[in-house]
């Protein structure tokens, strides 16, 4: 087991050497004002049987969970995913895809009472395969899943019950560490069959009240190691680089904190100027809600990428099965449509595309959409007072029919999409040397390996939109809205209508038979 604890201090945050004290066997921090990342790497043999079984059948497995609360993604942790739980999975071979992952998923997701999630017995049931139309280089896991998950509570409970309970001495410590994930802004879990190791990372972008106060003890086992870093980040010499400096130590090995300074190219870059966006739906939403992505014009400055790089603004939507886009409508090249929505083009889409199916028929969790957004034309006169209005891109979407409910409504949760600039970099830039590199976040696989992204900051208290979907109102008790009224009402009215027409026909047949009118008339005359 290996632990890495990184504190990232803001450039102008105060630091007193007394706040981080290293002894022969432990390291303690006090009132530290910093963002924090904890990363634990565990070998397969240290894991419980059930989890190991899942991992052993996986080529890769990546979980990405992000909080619904707004948080400030600091460099070098500036990448984001839409709030909720994302799973990227590649089975070891196509036959080995197993039920175990679904069971695990159920444990992690289902205990939430209002969980809206697509269950599976095998990942192929509810997972989607990656991009359908992207013609670009794509490198991502073969199967993908998403679900709304406001809190990692059940994941924490799972770790406590299955992982912590196994370990001998540091059980209580393990419990505490797991509990801490409840306040994390994002949690990543990674496994791949090459390293045979599971990595769990938690990210807290802001300290608890009063700052971080914690103590890290050297483990009894020699194999276990704790790396510690207290760093600050700033822009590197090259536009694609991040420069970091501060103190490093390995607890139990080093005698004192070692000052350090290093820089590396990073695929995720912070935007130097404040840049934010908000997401909303036009009200009333009806059955065809339109998503608004509003960006202050001041937030739309091209990032400080190399001047020869091409940059484009993108949004990546994660839509649960309850809501969907019409691929034919959005993939249009009609400039009038695109301009009216401030879109440039649909770049990639994946997942559930059925335009007609109700939600209860859809088995897969939903769909992903990568859209390039238009940016306002450059102002001719730079000195002019800046336009205070927002730049808004709109995305027309549609709701699926949902099962009836007692109230006549059902709430669906739609995570805010991520919005980012994607810029090309020079050939030969090696992003992999970044110790804080983050891959497998969905949209990164739709770009080349040397693409840099600059993410805008979602500005809101709650990064999930809730839409009230009108559904058929059916009450269980003895109110006015019982299903039997619909059943018998329909049956009675149609039967009566049928009888009425039949009666009319019988009367016609009675008075003039079923034959020819002329013949009948002649016949009548003869009488």
């Amino acid at each position, binding site marked *: 087991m290996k632990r890495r604890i990184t504190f990232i201090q803001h450039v102008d945050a105060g630091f007193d050497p007394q706040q981080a004290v290293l002894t022969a066997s432990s390291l303690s921090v006090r009132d530290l004002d910093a963002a924090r990342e904890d990363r634990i790497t565990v070998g397969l043999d240290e894991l419980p049987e059930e989890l190991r079984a899942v991992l052993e059948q996986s080529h890769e497995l990546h979980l990405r969970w992000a909080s619904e609360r707004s948080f400030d993604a600091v460099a070098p942790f500036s990448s984001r995913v839409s709030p909720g739980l994302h799973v990227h999975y590649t089975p070891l071979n196509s036959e080995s895809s197993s039920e175990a992952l679904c069971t695990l998923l159920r444990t992690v997701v289902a205990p939430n009472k209002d969980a809206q999630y697509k269950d599976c017995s095998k990942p192929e049931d509810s997972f989607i395969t990656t991009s359908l139309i992207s013609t670009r280089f794509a490198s991502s896991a073969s199967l993908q899943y998403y679900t709304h998950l406001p809190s990692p509570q059940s994941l924490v409970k799972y770790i406590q019950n299955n992982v912590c309970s196994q370990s001998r001495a540091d059980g209580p410590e393990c419990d505490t560490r797991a509990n801490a994930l409840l306040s994390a802004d994002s949690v990543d879990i990674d496994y791949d069959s090459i390293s045979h190791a599971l990595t769990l990372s938690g990210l807290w972008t802001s300290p608890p009240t009063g700052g971080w106060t914690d103590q890290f003890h050297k483990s009894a086992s020699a194999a276990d190691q704790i790396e510690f870093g207290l760093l600050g980040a700033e822009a590197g010499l090259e536009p694609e680089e991040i420069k970091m400096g501060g103190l490093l130590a390995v607890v139990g090995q080093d005698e004192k904190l070692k000052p350090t300074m290093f820089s590396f190219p990073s695929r995720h870059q912070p935007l130097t100027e404040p840049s934010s966006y908000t997401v909303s739906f036009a009200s009333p939403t009806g059955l065809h809600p339109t998503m608004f992505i509003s960006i202050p014009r001041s937030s739309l400055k091209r990032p400080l990428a190399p001047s020869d790089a091409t940059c484009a603004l993108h949004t990546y939507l994660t839509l649960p099965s309850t809501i969907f886009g019409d691929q034919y409508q959005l993939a249009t090249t009609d400039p009038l449509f695109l301009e009216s929505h401030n879109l440039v083009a649909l770049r990639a889409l994946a997942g559930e595309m059925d335009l007609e199916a109700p939600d209860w028929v859809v088995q897969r969790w939903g769909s992903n959409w990568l859209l390039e957004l238009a940016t306002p034309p450059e102002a001719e006169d730079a000195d002019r007072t800046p336009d205070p209005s927002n730049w808004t891109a709109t995305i027309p979407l549609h709701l699926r029919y949902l099962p009836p409910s007692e109230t006549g409504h059902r709430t669906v949760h739609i995570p805010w999409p991520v919005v980012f600039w994607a810029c090309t970099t020079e050939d030969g830039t090696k992003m992999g040397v970044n110790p804080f590199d983050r891959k497998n976040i969905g949209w990164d696989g739709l770009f080349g390996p040397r693409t840099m992204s600059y993410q805008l900051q979602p500005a809101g208290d709650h990064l999930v939109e809730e839409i009230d979907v009108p559904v058929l109102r059916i009450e269980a008790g003895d109110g006015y809205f019982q*299903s039997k009224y619909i059943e018998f009402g329909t049956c009675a009215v149609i039967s009566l209508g049928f009888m009425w027409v039949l009666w009319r026909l019988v009367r016609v047949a009675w008075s003039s038979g079923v034959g020819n009118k002329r013949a009948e008339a002649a016949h009548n005359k003869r009488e």
Partner: protein
Amino acid sequence: MALFNSPARVFIAATALRLILLVYGGWQDAHSAVKYTDIDYMVFTDAARYVAKGESPYARDTYRYTPLLAWMLLPTAWEGAAPWSTLTFAFGKALFALSDVLAGWLIVQLLVRCYRFPVERALRYVAAVWLWNPMVANISTRGSSEGLLGVLVAALLWATLTKKPILAGLILGLAVHFKIYPFIYGVSILWWWDAERDGSATVGSGLLSKALEFITPSRVKFTVAALASFVALNLVMYLQYGQPFLHHTFFHHLTRIDHRHNFSPYSTLLYLSAAGGAETRFEALAFLPQLILVVVALPLVLAKKSLTTAMLAQTFTFVTFNKVCTSQYFLWYLILLPFYLPSSSLIRKPTLGVSAAILWIAGQALWLHQGYNLEFLGLSSFVPGLFLAGLLFFVVNVWILGIIVRDGGEGAGEITVALK
């Protein structure tokens, strides 16, 4: 009005109306993000593009039509520079609009030749109901293929009433291949085409001779031709496109759930049962009242009295009792109205006619209001709003249907001159 003295004027006006709409539609498409062109037309033209590339039209999602349609629209897939591409894109719409006009012309011909209408009277009715009807012109110029059905039904009637059984059969086979519902006309035409109409009347009184009498040469020719053209078309399409052809043109319509709100009285029930909330399975029997009336009772009682009124009643019943109903379906019976209306009690008794029109429109309006509340305002108007509005509209339709049946029994829309 002098306008109705001349067929040329009526048809030029009808063509001009469609031309104006075509040009206007092209202009709106080019200048507004809200398109005049129907979304279905995009499906057709996408499918035509696949066909042009040598692929299956079913490569386009939601293409649920015969490949014939995509083949016909092949010119829309021709690449070209700006003004040329606008023209090729509009080819299908122009074809549909032309079919409209042709259908109108056939109906006028029939009214004049078989129903002995003065030209002016025939033109007046056909213009009011079909040729100058802005809804008809709008639907075809937006690119909906219903206009093709209109001309097929008109041609079927023309071939039947002018006693061309083989041609009538071939047209019927094509129409059923195109859209399943015209099969209902086959029953009426068969029953109508008895020995007396066939001119091969032999009077026998025994059961056997009665049965033999039923088999008239025209009936046989009509049936064989219809089956031949239907089977041949399907065989060709199946050999060309295989299972997807069968699935999308036929099976899809049999297995679809139709849980979404529409004018059908079954709509709410289907939503309920599709979501697993119904205890009974009434909807599984929905085909019974519909088919008993449409395939058995209506042709049997009405076809020999007035073929066109029987066909109108059949279409009206089919649409009213169907498990799914959208406004395009109303076009299906519109083409048959000019035969029925002139001698109907709806025209003879203006109060009755006006009441029927008002009730029908009010039923629609009520439903549309509820639909608007749901679709655009997000109000949960499924019950009682849409449910009751759907049933009310059904009741209005059934009442009108009763009037049509009674009129049909009295010989409304009957051919006034016997053709030998």
